[in-house]
């Protein structure tokens, strides 16, 4: 049960009552009296930065304030609550509406006018143009009506603008969410650093730093500049830039790279380049650029709208011109206005961004970063998926696979190897230690063992000189080569295994083979992808035998080996021509080109930053498992978007026909249009719910 202090709401301090709502927020369990308090608590304790998005939000809020007032007054007008026995009263209400509508239209319409103007200068007409035309028409007509008498449609103008602005905001919020998850890749321009000025140290934003400044970097801090170490020494993690995952020891006179992290010591660095002048700064700019790319199908919606606008204008014109002769001009103009209003592709504007933003948000919650909005659309149409072998399908760390001990006892060979490798710290050493302990073997105690860089380890046990390393090095140490072992070693090597020879007392006694370890989930993932109708291929720079073995183990449809980074990119390009849309899943520096060449580049968790830079989707560590679900989600998003677009278009089509025929008043048209947006919104939100339940189900399994 909860502690006594938890009998009051964590936010408002009132008693919780019999059935409080409990949430785990900020790592601790908290109890609230109502849902509103949960939200309010999150608002008060969350971290939010002020951005352009905030300005859009203020715009939306203030615009909504005016729009709501307009709609309230209009509601009163339509409901007949204000009955006009006195004609001037109606005039007054109309003027009040006009006064309210002018700021609303100015505040909310500004960005659309700007956009429409930019489109017009490029000779285009998109959804912004329709909004401007429709709203401008409604506003202009109403303004005339205020002066000459007649009905006003300020509420239509305001409602259209609020709905459209809401759509834009939701789109921007989706992008901002992705941006937050990418924060480390975006902070190059926003870091603060400690500058040493004579005897004092001051915190300055990175923008103030110029080459020549002395910067103090504390342990755990990110180094924000390229520079030269003046004093101090530390281990530095340069993974962000070089992809080197091991810490690098640095001391006075060494160079440090911006973006790397000082792990343990204090450094005094003389700045040589700061901010956007560094490679890190350029990567950050690249990420920002990706985030700013427009969402895919909203582009398609805009392209469609571009063809749509002239047609709508023609229909509106025709509705006015070819209205029955006895119709007064006022009524004829109303028909044209109804057409313009009902044609405003509100739902169209919302259809794609909302579904895409929801998709991006869903993926972000699972740790998958979508770096390019278009990736989701392309992912849905991917038919072939190419996997890099090392580090993606395999763990990238060697594992002891087999050995040949010639005439000696295999366990003896392994014990010597384990004893020698205890003194080394490279990847093979831990593989040998694991193999020895799996067989419950004690490592042989070595005297005077030491690593010979680039060759192996040599030491003395039971009076014999022992060594582990390459065959050539053992020969130079004077060990005699055993032809049986030598033949076996050759066959191991041609199979794609890494080998190490072990020898003592003047003879090579055995050879150990190491293979890359298949990720346990790889086979399952590929099978799941095949069920989704995808062709899977394995691409590697490794030996053909090693590649074939992995490809067969995961039951891939094909493989290609010994490919250099350039070869990989060329292969991808040719496969694209033959097989259509291709996704490449990779991790390392050597597939950066391939990732960039693919329609969708997917980098997996441990990916180096160059891979991340060229990939449009970044999966978390051990994220291979998520791939089938990502594909399913992308397809669900596409289905929703297409459903939304179909709905919005057929809805618009029918509504335009009705409006042109005079069966739809502009206000009804606006109401219908708002209804269409709501339906699109609900349809998109189903995306969130359906994947939620699917996730819950798979978690239970």
């Amino acid at each position, binding site marked *: 049960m909860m502690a006594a202090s938890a009998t*009051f*709401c964590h*936010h*408002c*301090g*009132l*008693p*919780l*009552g*019999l*059935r*409080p*709502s409990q949430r785990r927020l900020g790592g601790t369990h908290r109890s609230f*009296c*109502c*849902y*509103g*308090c*949960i*939200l*309010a608590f*999150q*608002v*008060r304790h*969350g971290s*939010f930065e*002020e*951005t352009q*998005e*905030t*300005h859009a*939000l*203020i*715009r*939306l*809020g*203030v615009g*909504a*304030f005016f729009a*709501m*007032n307009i*709609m*309230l007054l209009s*509601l*009163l007008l339509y*409901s007949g*609550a204000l009955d006009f026995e006195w004609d001037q009263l109606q005039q007054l209400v109309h003027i009040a509406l006009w006064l309210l509508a002018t700021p609303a239209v100015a505040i909310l319409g500004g960005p659309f006018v700007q956009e429409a103007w930019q489109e017009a200068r490029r000779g285009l007409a998109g959804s912004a143009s329709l909004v401007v035309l429709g709203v401008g028409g409604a506003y202009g007509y109403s303004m005339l009506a205020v002066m000459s008498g007649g009905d006003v449609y300020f509420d239509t103008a305001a409602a259209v603008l609020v709905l459209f602005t809401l759509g834009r905001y*939701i789109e921007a*919020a989706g992008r901002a969410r992705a941006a937050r998850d990418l924060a480390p890749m975006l902070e190059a321009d926003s870091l603060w650093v400690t500058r040493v000025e004579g005897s004092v140290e001051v915190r300055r934003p990175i923008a103030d730093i110029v080459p020549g400044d002395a910067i103090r970097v504390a342990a755990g801090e990110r180094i924000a500049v390229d520079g030269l170490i003046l004093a101090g020494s530390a281990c530095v993690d340069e993974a962000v830039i070089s992809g080197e995952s091991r810490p690098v020891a640095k001391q006075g006179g060494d160079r440090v790279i911006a973006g790397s992290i000082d792990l343990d010591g204090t450094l005094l660095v003389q700045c040589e380049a700061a901010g956007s002048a560094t490679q890190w700064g350029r990567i950050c700019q690249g990420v920002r650029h990706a985030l700013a790319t427009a969402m895919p199908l909203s582009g398609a919606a805009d392209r469609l709208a571009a063809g749509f606008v002239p047609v709508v204008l023609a229909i509106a014109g025709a509705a006015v011109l070819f209205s029955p002769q006895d119709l007064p001009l006022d009524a004829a103009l109303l028909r044209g206005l109804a057409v313009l209003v009902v044609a405003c592709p509100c739902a169209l504007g919302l259809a794609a961004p909302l579904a895409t933003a*929801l998709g991006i*948000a869903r993926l972000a919650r699972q740790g998958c970063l979508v770096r390019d909005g278009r990736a989701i659309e392309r992912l849905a149409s991917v038919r072939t998926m190419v996997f890099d072998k090392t580090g993606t399908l395999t763990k990238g760390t060697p594992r002891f696979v087999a050995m040949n001990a010639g005439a000696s006892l295999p366990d003896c060979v392994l014990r010597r190897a384990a004893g020698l490798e205890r003194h080394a710290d490279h990847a093979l050493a831990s593989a040998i230690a694991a193999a020895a302990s799996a067989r419950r073997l004690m490592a042989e105690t070595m005297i005077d063992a030491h690593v010979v860089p680039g060759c192996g380890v040599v030491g003395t046990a039971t009076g014999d000189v022992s060594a582990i390393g390459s065959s050539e090095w053992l020969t130079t140490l004077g060990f005699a080569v055993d032809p049986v072992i030598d033949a076996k070693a050759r066959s191991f090597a041609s199979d794609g295994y890494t080998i190490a020879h072990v020898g003592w007392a003047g003879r090579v006694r055995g050879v150990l083979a190491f293979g890359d370890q298949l990720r346990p989930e790889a086979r399952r993932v590929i099978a799941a992808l095949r069920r989704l109708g995808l062709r899977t291929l394995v691409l590697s720079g490794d030996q053909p035998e090693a590649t074939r073995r992995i490809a067969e183990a995961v039951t891939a449809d094909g493989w290609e080996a010994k490919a250099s980074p350039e070869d990989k990119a060329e292969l991808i390009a040719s496969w694209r021509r033959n097989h259509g849309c291709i996704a490449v899943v990779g991790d390392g520096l050597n597939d950066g080109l391939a990732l960039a060449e693919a329609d969708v580049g997917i980098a997996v968790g441990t990916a180096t930053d160059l891979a991340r830079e060229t990939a449009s989707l970044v999966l978390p560590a051990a994220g291979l498992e998520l791939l089938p679900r990502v594909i399913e989600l992308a397809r669900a998003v596409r289905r929703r978007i297409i459903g939304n677009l179909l709905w919005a278009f057929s809805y618009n089509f029918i509504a335009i026909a009705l409006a042109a025929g005079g069966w739809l008043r502009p206000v009804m048209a606006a109401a219908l249009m708002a209804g269409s947006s709501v339906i699109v919104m609900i349809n998109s*939100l189903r995306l*969130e*719910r359906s994947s939620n339940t699917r996730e819950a189900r798979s978690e239970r399994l």
Partner: protein
Amino acid sequence: MSGVAMAYYLVIFAAGFAGSFHCVGMCGGFACALGASMAGERPTIVKHLLYNSGRVTTYVFLGGLAGTLGAGLSAAHAAHGQALLASDYVLSLAQRLLSVIAGLLMLVMALQLLGYLGSRHAVVGGFGAAGLTTALGRLVRAQGAAAPLALGVANGFLPCPLVYAFTLQAAVAGTPLSGMLTMLAFGLGTFPAMLLMGGIGRLFAPAWRRYSVRAAAGFIVLIGVITLARALLPVSSMHVHLP
């Protein structure tokens, strides 16, 4: 405006006033966060007036929508039934049904305010809530003269049992105008406490607030019972005509 109608709106205002000590706990944080303006006393007052106007405008808007919806439901039902039955009977039946539902829901809200029921947050959860939270968070910290107004507008949409209860009452009120007035009376009732919040910048004592929340729940029970009674008792004189 008749005396009965006046009394009705006064009860709503009183409920809003008492209930605003609930608001002070939940939304008062926003008022506090808005805080005092650096520029002096007058800008501070302007800021908090803007925030509260935004909030009340949203309430009145919700009331107008609810009133329209309620009127529409009654009218639609009436139009549908007219061919079959005497119109005034059907009209009152539709209104009675709506009133019964609203009255019962108000009693549920009152119980929830008193802490006897858990909140039903699944209804408003999901993307909408997350979006609203983010939006409010940004606006609370935003600079700029217009930000408090936008904050108030968004704040008005924050799920709150009080707002729900009075929006329901607005739906039963019968016309868009009476729906708006209902929510306006409620909103103005919450005005003093929330405005004060900005000024004094700290929460009232929890015990104090607990009593007034109970009082608010009492008012809601009262209004709910009246709503139910209007629907169930066959006394036409009980039918208050709201402007």
